[in-house]
């Protein structure tokens, strides 16, 4: 009896302990996800995530969109006065590299023999790789333009300084010099352009940017023209790239514009539209309205004003549902005084103008680069060419839906092409593409219609007996627009030694340290 029970108990112990062990190895198989993505889904996500995070209420409308004075905040104006939230800088950095990792993953999946055949089903391998290289260049351009020296990754260049996007080998990547970064972006764009099969698609689906190899190629060359123009005189070989990019084929018309169109629903609406559903923080800046009205600068009343802005007093709800009226009366537009203290904002807000229903709509297209800009770049390359200048203005007006007669009238009134006129028109074209406008301002000093720290601005409505105010930067020492962003706090704490080396290399981690091409 006793033995029987001992045997029983021991056998139960044995059976229980081992019965589970058969499947023990299978327990850790994750039922929720996979380690292997499909490339087109990565591309689709990366493009959207990139635009979501560089054209939204934070990284755009609370940093660069106001800084270049396309917009001004209607309340809580600290960021307009250059005191941007450090967490926003962290996000810009984080999202950019996260997106870059997705693009790099597409390259990896297309080059790893174990997966490349499978991925080739979703588009020609070369085109997939080229698109990723081009988009990586686009991401790194924004990062370099914003911060200076940055950790960098290159598909085609195994420079020892390029240590980003390699988590298995390097948790604290070195920062590559701006010289190397810009030079390699140019090289990457050239090589990517050369590997594209123009007669094929890029991805079979999930690609709302390009659709065809040809469009991708024109984008690659146009972007190279942009970058080469930015760094000519500061990075060796840039001039040659300008000519090479042009001859390799840049954008030909507005059909070649590259933009990300959001969906006409509330599932994937455009970021600013989505923000305006619950907030109303941003208005068109008064300095921009004054330029478009012809109150400042060299131009007459610009009909694009009516496409960009909503007449004063329009209910926000009518903008969002698309029923807001379009006014052609310049008296309906005054803009939001830029850079006022928060305490003055309530008195001015109701007299300002919101963005128009052409912008605050769910299916808005965020532009990565457009034909008009290319024409201005060509105008510059061609010695401030009148033809390219006029083409650029016309293309921009067409894109915003200005009536042909109004375009003709405006063009007839244009002052002749000059450095100032071309670059100021380019500034108007770049409306809603604030990162590029900010870079161009730093490179060229145009437009010269912005309100700078220490200057006196005019209020829309007298407040406390005052009709003017002095624009004061909240960051001590800034007398002009910021020339860069602080390196993110997360990088300071997580990659300290390289951060310190990079800060020293660029001349200090300050908001007025000039980048290598900021020579004006």
């Amino acid at each position, binding site marked *: 009896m006793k033995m029987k*029970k001992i045997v029983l108990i021991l056998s139960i112990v044995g059976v229980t302990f081992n019965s589970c062990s058969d499947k023990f190895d299978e327990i850790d198989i994750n039922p929720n996800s996979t*380690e292997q993505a*499909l490339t087109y889904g990565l591309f689709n996500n990366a493009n959207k995530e990139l635009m979501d995070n560089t054209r939204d209420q934070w990284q755009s409308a609370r940093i660069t969109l106001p800084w270049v004075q396309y917009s001004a905040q209607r309340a809580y104006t600290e960021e307009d006065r250059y005191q941007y939230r450090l967490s926003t800088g962290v996000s810009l950095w984080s999202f950019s590299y996260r997106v870059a990792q997705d693009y790099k993953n597409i390259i990896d999946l297309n080059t790893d023999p174990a997966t490349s055949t499978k991925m080739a089903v979703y588009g020609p391998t070369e085109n997939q790789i080229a698109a990723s290289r081009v988009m990586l260049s686009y991401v790194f351009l924004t990062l370099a333009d914003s911060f200076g020296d940055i950790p960098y990754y290159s598909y085609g260049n195994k420079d020892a300084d390029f240590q980003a*996007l390699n988590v*298995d080998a390097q948790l604290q990547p070195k920062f590559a010099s701006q010289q190397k970064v810009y030079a390699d972006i140019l090289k990457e764009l050239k090589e990517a352009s050369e590997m594209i099969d123009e007669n094929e698609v890029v991805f079979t689906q999930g690609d709302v940017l390009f659709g065809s190899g040809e469009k991708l190629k024109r984008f690659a060359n146009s972007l190279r023209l942009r970058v080469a123009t930015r760094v000519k005189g500061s990075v060796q070989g840039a001039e040659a790239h300008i000519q090479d990019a042009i001859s390799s084929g840049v954008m030909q018309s507005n059909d070649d514009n590259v933009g990300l169109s959001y969906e006409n629903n509330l599932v*994937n609406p455009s970021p600013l539209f989505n923000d305006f559903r619950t907030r109303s923080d941003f208005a068109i800046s008064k300095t921009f309205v004054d330029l478009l009205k012809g109150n400042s600068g060299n131009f007459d009343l610009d009909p694009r004003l009516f496409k960009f802005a909503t007449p004063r007093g329009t209910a926000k709800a009518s903008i969002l549902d698309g029923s807001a009226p379009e006014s052609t009366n310049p008296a309906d537009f005054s803009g939001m005084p830029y850079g006022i203290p928060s305490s003055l904002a309530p008195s001015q807000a109701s007299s300002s103008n919101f963005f128009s229903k052409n912008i605050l709509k769910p299916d808005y297209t965020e532009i990565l680069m457009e034909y008009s800009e290319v024409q201005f770049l060509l105008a510059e390359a061609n010695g401030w060419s009148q033809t390219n200048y006029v083409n650029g203005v016309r293309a921009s007006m067409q894109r915003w839906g200005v009536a042909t007669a109004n375009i003709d009238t405006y063009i007839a009134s244009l002052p002749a092409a000059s450095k100032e006129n071309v670059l100021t028109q380019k500034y108007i074209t770049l409306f809603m593409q604030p990162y590029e406008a900010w870079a161009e301002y730093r490179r060229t000093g145009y437009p010269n219609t912005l309100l700078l720290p220490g200057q006196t601005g005019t209020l829309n409505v007298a407040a406390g007996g005052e009709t003017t105010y002095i624009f*004061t930067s*909240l960051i001590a020492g800034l007398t002009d627009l910021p020339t860069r962003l602080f390196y993110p706090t997360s*990088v300071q704490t997580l990659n300290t030694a390289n951060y310190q080396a990079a800060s020293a290399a660029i001349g200090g981690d300050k908001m007025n340290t000039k980048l290598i091409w900021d020579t004006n």
Partner: protein
Amino acid sequence: MKKLTAGVLILVLSSSLMVAQAQQTKSGDTLKTQQIEEVVVTALGIKREKKALGYAAQEVKGETISDAGQTNAVSALSGNVAGVQVTAPSTMGGSARITMRGISSITGENRPLIVVDGVPLDNSNVNNSDTQRGAGGRDYGDASFDINPDDIESVTVLKGGPAAALYGSRAGNGAIIYTTKSAKKGRTDIQLNSGLSFESIYIRPKLQNQYGGGYSDTLPTATINGQTYNIQEYETDASWGPKYDPNLMYLPWYAFDPEFSNDYLKPVPWVAPKNDVDSFFNTGVTYTNNISVAKSFGDTNVRLSYTNTNITGIVPNSKIKKDNFSINLNSKLSDKLTADAIVNYVHTEGFNRPEIGYGDNSVAQKFYHFGQRNLDYEKLKDYKLVDGSQRTWNRSAYDDPTPLYSDNPYWTVNENTSADSRQRFFGNAGLTYNFDKHFYVVGKVYGDVYSQNISSRVAVGSQAISNYSIQKRNVSEFNYEGRAHYNNNFGGFSLNTFAGFNIRDNKTSILDGTTIGGLVIPGLYNLDNGVENSLASNAEAHGSVKSLFASASIGFRDLLFVEATGRNDWYSMLKDSGFYPSVTGSFVFSNVLKTNWLSFGKIRAGWSSIAQGGTPYVTGTFITFGSPFNGAPQYSNPNTAGNPDLTPELKVTKEIGIEARFFKNRLGFDVTYYDTKSRDLIIPVPVDPSTGYLSKSINAGEMTNKGLEAMVNVTPIRNDNFSWDITWNFAKNRNKLVNLYQNLQNYVLTNAPFRAQLVAQVGQSYGSILGTDYVYDAQGNKVVDENGFYKASEIQSLGSILPKYNMGFRNTVRYKTLSLSFLIDIQEGGKYFSTTNMWGMYSGMLEESALGGNREAGVILAGVKEDGTPNDILLDAPTWGGTYYNTVDAQNVFDASYIKLRDITLGYDLPKSMIGNVFQGVRISAFARNLFAWNLSNKGIDPENTSYGSGNIQGLEGGSLPSTRTYGVNVNFKF
């Protein structure tokens, strides 16, 4: 064969009480010492004589918890046990962070294992990271809230690794072992216990009462129907507005609805409100009713218990209801075979637990960060128009009632509600077979299964997009355990040994659904009512650990004891297995000295090496899914890169202690020194995002804790009618992160919503608050910049959230059957970051923003300019207030020290003469908790109220409700 099958079935149903019985049968040779033999519950529920233990274990009696009217069995330990730190915000049903001997894991579990009647109880905290970092969310509390304080017989706190080593990979932080009441052999016992308590607001930010909402010092005007009125900056959620003036008339926010004809276009004086923020809060009420029946039928003992708890919170329209049922059975089936089982069913239902932190529905954020001080809360109660649309003070304009930033707080608590429920079974069943008086075997199953539902609503008409979200979680843990014990005595030697196995199986399954784009039909909360198709997502996790363990304890003449344990764990989620040994020893020197004045004396020492495993799927790098965009799927790399080479994290503990009692136990102390070292911590190390990931899972780092726990008992007076006992608990822990990974210096635990980060920084204590400090010149003056703002340093540590020491001081006085007891709970040191202080100053809400005429005169910050001359730059008041944000974070960092009158309890057992024959006993206790707090560095913030979860994210105050005082009575009838 039939008998075999039945045997298997019975074996699989069993319980821990029989172990106790089995133990009792063998303890025939008790020493005849003066003190009562203390028996405590140790790891795996095994009862041992306390004198034989070579590690620190402290017991708390159930009455200590129930007399004080505690509804949370975990936070009840605060101040009662040396070395236990409890941070319990006073949010209704909120999370209670409990740690012992500091912090040993950077991101992993730092709370002790909670065991109830042998069941390792899931103590999940579902608060999301935004809630925890103070960025807004509701505090759903910990799953251990399900433990019924009324059922607790005793609590044993196994403080460290050596004590808890037998629990293997989860024991690194010690264990808290709850033993519930059971029927005592030969007795029938019926008890009725009723408690009623009240909760009222206590510590909250001090607000200014001189200036109303707005930014301008004059009121704006508007012409309405041809008449010009003073109006207000309704759209401004700050209070830098005009000074109150009873002769200044204006149209308040509620003057624009014809529906409210008494108020329509009726100017009122610009004065401080009659009914201010405090009037918003209710007195919370908690009812607890428990009935228990215990009966013994020969060899079978049964106890049934039912408790009903009803709590209403200080925030209107918030409540929690809890029902606990338990059945506790044990039966001697034959001379050798006993069976036992405990089943608990708990149903917890929360309604509208308040949102806290910096969130849309956080009323504290509206009251103390961004708001208008002139609001009368009686007026705000009319928060809705007949057509269902909202009336808020924060209108977009006088002619536009759309809420700009803030909902009306009454709208928030009545319309934007949440509901949660948890249905839980836990218990165990087992069989014990005694072969003879030396050898027995035990088979047990422990189960803990619950499902939790949480739903939340944002009504149509709110400032935020209307929404309905639900989450369903199913959590289960089963442990299958078998042990064989052999105990015997050989001459002067005693031997206690056992060996066994455990198989643990954890599953979690989560299903989420949320509407997209808003709700269509107002007031209908269903996923079908979304503007777009609702979004569903789910996740499953499964993990298992298989273990073998053994223990041997040898005693020599009750003088010397040596014990060794070992456990090997095999993990489903990691490649490596881990072996976790412990060795402890004790020497009862009082048995050698045998003096009169020494009642008992023991020294003890212990060592253990324990590991923690990973979470399921931590080794892989799995893609995350986005919802399809433009007709194609979206995939992205995850934020965290996985690592196939992860190994368990290891924690080595060394401890030494001395325990002594003198003068017939009138004076006693128990002191422990410990030294723990954890290494190979599994952490998703945040990395520079330029790696392509935000973090990577690696084994990294080494953290040490060294500390002292002391307990002193003094009984100055003890006679038949009167006694006075003093207990003093003290714990000091020094935590240090020795290194992280390679030359990484910081592990960012989280970011506070606007400023400051919580990090683990190499060379520092865990939980440093990182931010900017003042810049000082050589003379120690604060430096101001050319704008007249304080110049900010680079980002640096502004102090750790961990305290220097904690202590509790309990006095108990008894006169006959009357007893009075109070506990002073003291924390020294530690820091917290206050977002409330930052925004409250920024917005002109706090009292300090309106002191000394600074509104009119402006402020010159005390300090020197960069050239060394005294600062003379005058800032207007709003600009000065604005500098609390975005300049020097140290302005918003405060010391977390406190001295609290934690509880005071008056208990009285009615004398027999009064109660007659109906009752066997009647006990009445009156209690008050958190009556007073002293020594606060910011008088408006309770340092315990600065965290919103029981996890590692603490000390980032993002917008807390007032902390509270509780007082009540408890009556116990024994029939």
